[in-house]
């Protein structure tokens, strides 16, 4: 009964969505306020209906209602509660329901808090939003109904894929989707602006926080996914340039570009049509990302069971959304007038370079991801494009931009002074030189891109700090530097933290990519293997039981120069319901790198096991860096300017800061 009610709510939401995507649009066209006002209650009721629907599916999972196909296929009565709940979105149908839940949630947020938007813009934004959700409702109701029943009901479920029964992965899809769907807001605003024929600073002040929030969520989502692959798959790697990973990385690249170009629209009233284009691109990549993973067209190490029959519908939806919005863009974008002018060497120029490199990077990833599909479709044979391709193309493409990132914030708007900026960055240049030399000395040489990567990470980190030091006049007037630091706008804080985070992440990637050490062998109890100066002693394996699995646990004692460092417990689990083993790598994190051990099958009859031992240098900095980026994005979103929707008057701002200072 609950499942049927959830299904019914979904159907109702479809019809509310159809009304919301037409009436307010027509109203905005005819300047009819009553028709436009329709959008708000419609958006709220869509959200309420989907909350109900999502709740119904969650309920069915929680009480293990095995007469619902979705629950039967993805759950099991013995599964821990956390995974019963995360199992709701751990499958195709449920994940789509989560998608529309977030979509309608964001839509109702615009309806609620969009009071300061021009009524016609608001009506159109919500109208476009509803069109997107109608597409998704149709897709769900026609091809992937999460509430389908089966008769007779099963006694117990087929259990969820054990690899997915993991806290890191339980929260990976929601964050990823919050990111994807967040870009739908930028998209709706972009399409609405194209219909209106007007883009101004107020528009950008609305788009920026949505983009920032989406970007931050997507960053969390990607980092969680990468972290999961790192410790759960037991391959010692964290990024495989796998199509599924690329699918989430492309919207991130486009979103990063959008984030930066929206600044130019807000501050300088230029680059408007380009920003609109990026908004369309970011959302198109999000849609592509959602569907690539679910459509079964990609061969991927991460591909879970998929259904190619949905492919046609997906392709149609993608064509309508992407084709339609690009056609509208071609038609209306020339009407958008920019007023700001700038020289190539200026902050605008720097942001533009960021945009172009990000978009080119996105295009390269797209090419590498879709090329095998394309070649296969024209009968050119089956190929796979993996890390060697992306490393050879993507990394050299990004390096110049990462270098330019040091300069960007140092240049002034309109007309920058390159020579002056270089002089101010002299400390960063020196630090970079030292870092490169130190890397070569400590690591005793090493791969070219590893050394370049370390150097560029130091360059970015130091230049960000130099920029902040100048901003607060740390060396010119150190007395009040701290007070000035505290009074920096949150957007500035956000930028500094995010750029620092990027520098840390690059250091982690360069370290782990360049100097990873690995050793595979058969170890008998008491035997020792040395990897990167750490001695791993195998102390034998024992068996045990978990809630819905059995365990073989191998213990390793790690020492360095005789001093104990850590005990590692690597596990191999077996989930009887699915007859499926999983590998649980043992990881001990140090600031200098991760000790990583995996246990395989037993070998011989003296208690020997195949073991795989890694030392992954600096990996932890990747996660710390991602955290900095997310915190930076979040602080930026909370900037006061976005909440009041108009530039703060000079006096009121200083008044506010005086207040804050006295408090």
């Amino acid at each position, binding site marked *: 009964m609950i499942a049927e009610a959830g299904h019914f709510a979904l159907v109702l939401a479809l019809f509310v969505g159809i009304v919301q995507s037409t009436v307010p649009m027509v109203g905005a066209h005819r300047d009819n306020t009553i028709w436009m006002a329709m959008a708000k209650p419609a958006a709220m009721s869509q959200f309420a209906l989907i909350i109900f629907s999502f709740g119904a599916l969650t309920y069915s999972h929680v009480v293990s209602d095995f007469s619902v196909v979705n629950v039967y296929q993805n759950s099991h009565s013995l599964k821990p509660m956390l995974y019963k709940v995360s199992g709701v979105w751990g499958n195709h149908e449920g994940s789509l329901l989560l998608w529309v839940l977030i979509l309608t949630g964001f839509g109702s947020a615009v309806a609620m808090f969009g009071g300061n938007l021009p009524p016609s813009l608001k009506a159109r934004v919500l109208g476009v939003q509803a069109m997107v959700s109608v597409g998704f409702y149709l897709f769900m109701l026609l091809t992937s109904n999460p509430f389908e029943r089966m008769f007779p009901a099963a006694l117990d479920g087929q259990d969820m894929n054990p690899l997915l029964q993991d806290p890191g992965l339980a929260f990976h899809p929601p964050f990823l989707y919050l990111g994807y769907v967040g870009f739908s807001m930028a998209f709706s605003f972009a399409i609405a602006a194209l219909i209106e024929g007007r883009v101004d600073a107020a528009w950008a002040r609305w788009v920026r926080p949505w983009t920032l929030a989406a970007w931050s969520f997507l960053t969390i989502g990607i980092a969680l996914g990468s972290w999961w692959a790192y410790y759960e798959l037991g391959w010692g790697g964290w990024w495989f340039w796998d199509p599924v990973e690329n699918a989430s990385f492309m919207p991130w690249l486009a979103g990063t570009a959008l984030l930066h170009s929206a600044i130019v629209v807000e501050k300088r009233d230029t680059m408007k049509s380009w920003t609109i284009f990026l908004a369309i691109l970011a959302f198109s990549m999000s849609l592509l990302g959602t569907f690539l993973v679910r459509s079964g067209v990609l061969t991927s190490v991460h591909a879970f069971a998929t259904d190619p029959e949905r492919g046609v519908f997906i392709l149609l939806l993608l064509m309508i959304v992407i084709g339609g919005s690009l056609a509208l863009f071609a038609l209306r974008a020339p009407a958008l007038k920019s007023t700001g002018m700038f020289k190539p060497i200026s902050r605008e120029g720097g942001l533009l370079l960021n945009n*172009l490199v990000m978009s080119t990077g996105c295009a390269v990833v797209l090419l590498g991801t879709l090329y095998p599909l394309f070649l296969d479709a024209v009968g050119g044979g089956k190929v796979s494009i993996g890390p060697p391709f992306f490393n050879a193309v993507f990394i050299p493409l990004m390096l110049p931009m990462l270098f330019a990132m040091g300069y960007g914030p140092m240049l002034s708007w309109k007309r920058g002074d390159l020579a002056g900026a270089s002089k101010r960055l002299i400390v960063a240049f020196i630090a970079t030189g030292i870092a490169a030399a130190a890397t070569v000395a400590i690591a005793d040489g090493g791969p070219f891109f590893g050394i370049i990567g370390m150097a560029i990470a130091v360059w970015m980190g130091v230049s960000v700090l130099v920029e902040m030091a100048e901003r607060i006049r740390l060396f010119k007037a150190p007395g009040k530097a701290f007070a000035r630091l505290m009074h920096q706008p949150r957007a500035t804080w956000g930028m500094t933290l995010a750029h620092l985070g990027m520098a840390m992440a690059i250091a982690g990637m360069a370290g782990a990519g360049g100097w990873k050490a690995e050793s595979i062998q058969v170890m008998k109890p008491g035997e020792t293997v040395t990897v990167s100066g750490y001695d791993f002693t195998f102390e034998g394996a024992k068996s045990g039981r978990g809630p819905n699995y059995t365990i073989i646990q191998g213990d390793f004692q790690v020492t360095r120069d005789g001093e104990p460092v850590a005990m590692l417990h690597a596990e191999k689990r077996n989930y009887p319901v699915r007859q499926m083993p999983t590998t649980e790598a043992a990881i001990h994190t140090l600031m200098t790198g991760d000790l990583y051990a995996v246990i*395989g099958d037993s070998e011989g009859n003296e208690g020997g096991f195949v073991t795989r031992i890694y030392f992954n240098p600096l990996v932890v900095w990747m996660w710390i860096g991602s955290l900095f980026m997310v915190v930076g994005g979040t602080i930026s979103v909370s900037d006061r300017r976005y909440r009041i929707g108009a530039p703060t008057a000079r006096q009121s701002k200083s008044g506010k800061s005086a207040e804050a200072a006295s408090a």
Partner: protein
Amino acid sequence: MKRKHKRLSFVGLALLLIAAAAALVLNAYEESIVFFHSPTDIIEKKVSSDRRLRLGGLVEEDSVQKKADAVVVFNVTDLSNSVSVRYRGILPDLFREGQGVVAEGIFKDGVFQADEVLAKHDETYMPPEVADALKKSGKWDAMGEEMKRQGHTPKDSK
């Protein structure tokens, strides 16, 4: 600077980047794109030993042998031909006899030297390349029977 100049420098920079990307792509293309082969392809075509390949098919029943020093040898078959594969390391969790598998490495002296073995995350899932290889060798239907005999039901048949 006039608007026209601004646009020109924008387009110039964009073209420069695209050219750089294209050069990098073409440069990487030869070395880093890995072609997929079925066991029949490997046996019938002459494959050079200095190119990386992907080999896909089913792990032949009763062919998996563990050797010393963590080496595993097994046969990959498309039910017409089979190729011997040598791999050193820990096999993926879902590696099993009779299941689909993809190995990456080089074919040398009659043995496929794999440095990477992929089996899928889900036990009911068949890699599309493997399915294709089986269809080409005309054994897809036999495979379907075999899968059913082992108790697998394709997910979408409700």
